[in-house]
């Protein structure tokens, strides 16, 4: 099993994701440069955190046009597991694979700290290792993570069980306390917290481990 990790100019969590998958969980990975189009043999694709293309214009706005993402879109539409972490979540919303947008934190600060979350896995294939209602802690590190969406669409997402991760102490003003969202098919997950930074007790907890370990089936 090989997991693809997309690398944009400006990605900075690509190596963290590789360490979590390879070093902590024993999976094989392959970096996918943003100009690549070959996803052959990949079981899943991760869009890591960072500042793709310098976050020029808007977070994720330029990344949306990367050649590799045309293939990721096709991969996702065929049911392939896709995970967008932080900047990767912002890219998934710009790409239209997940609804809404991530905007400037309400307090203007870049917030970098462990954050309590509630998990509601629903049909999300990435969260099968968690109990519904389980409380976990994952680190966040972002300046633009405030989830924004039309009110009626937010209610629809909640009714559909797509709001799979919620802040229990909202750090950024996110509407509906949204920290992570899944598509209706359950294969595409976007979240602002960093599960790849929570896979070892040595570096602040293991609550993210089961999320990435879901790939092991």
């Amino acid at each position, binding site marked *: 099993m090989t997991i693809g990790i997309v690398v944009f100019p400006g990605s900075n969590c690509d190596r963290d994701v590789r360490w979590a998958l390879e070093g902590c969980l024993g999976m094989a990975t392959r970096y996918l440069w943003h100009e690549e189009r070959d996803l052959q043999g990949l079981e899943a694709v991760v869009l890591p955190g960072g500042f793709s293309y310098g976050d020029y*214009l808007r977070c994720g706005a330029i990344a949306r046009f990367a050649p590799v993402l045309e293939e990721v879109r096709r991969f996702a539409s065929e049911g392939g597991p896709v995970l967008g972490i932080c900047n990767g979540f912002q890219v998934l919303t710009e790409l239209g694979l997940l609804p809404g947008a991530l905007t400037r934190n*309400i307090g203007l600060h870049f917030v970098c700290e462990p954050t309590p979350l509630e998990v509601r896995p629903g049909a999300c294939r990435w969260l099968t290792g968690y109990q519904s209602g389980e409380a976990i802690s994952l680190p966040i590190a972002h300046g633009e993570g405030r989830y*924004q969406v039309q009110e009626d669409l937010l209610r629809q997402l909640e009714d559909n069980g797509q709001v799979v991760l919620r802040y229990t102490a909202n750090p950024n003003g996110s509407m509906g306390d949204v920290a992570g969202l899944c598509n209706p098919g359950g294969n595409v997950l976007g979240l602002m917290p960093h599960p790849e930074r929570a896979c070892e007790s040595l570096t602040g907890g293991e609550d993210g481990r089961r999320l990435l370990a879901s790939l092991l089936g």
Partner: protein
Amino acid sequence: MPHFHASVQVSLRPSVLDPAGEATRAAAGRLGVAGVTRLRIGKAIEVEIEAPDKATAQQQLEFLSERLLANPVIENWTLDLIETAAGPVA
């Protein structure tokens, strides 16, 4: 080929919070400018474009604004387009 200058104004939708605008509004008060009741920060994007005619330029700029320059989920945009001699407008 006729040359056009476009000015695209991107603003946050009224329903979207603008914490940076709020912070700037507060700073206006500290500068001694009283009475600023609202301050919202957007983007002004200047574009030079060549097109066979104004209608085509207009259509391309609208497409560009809707699909790239603004994110319609959180932003509105307006467009001003004028035909010019080649080269940037001062």
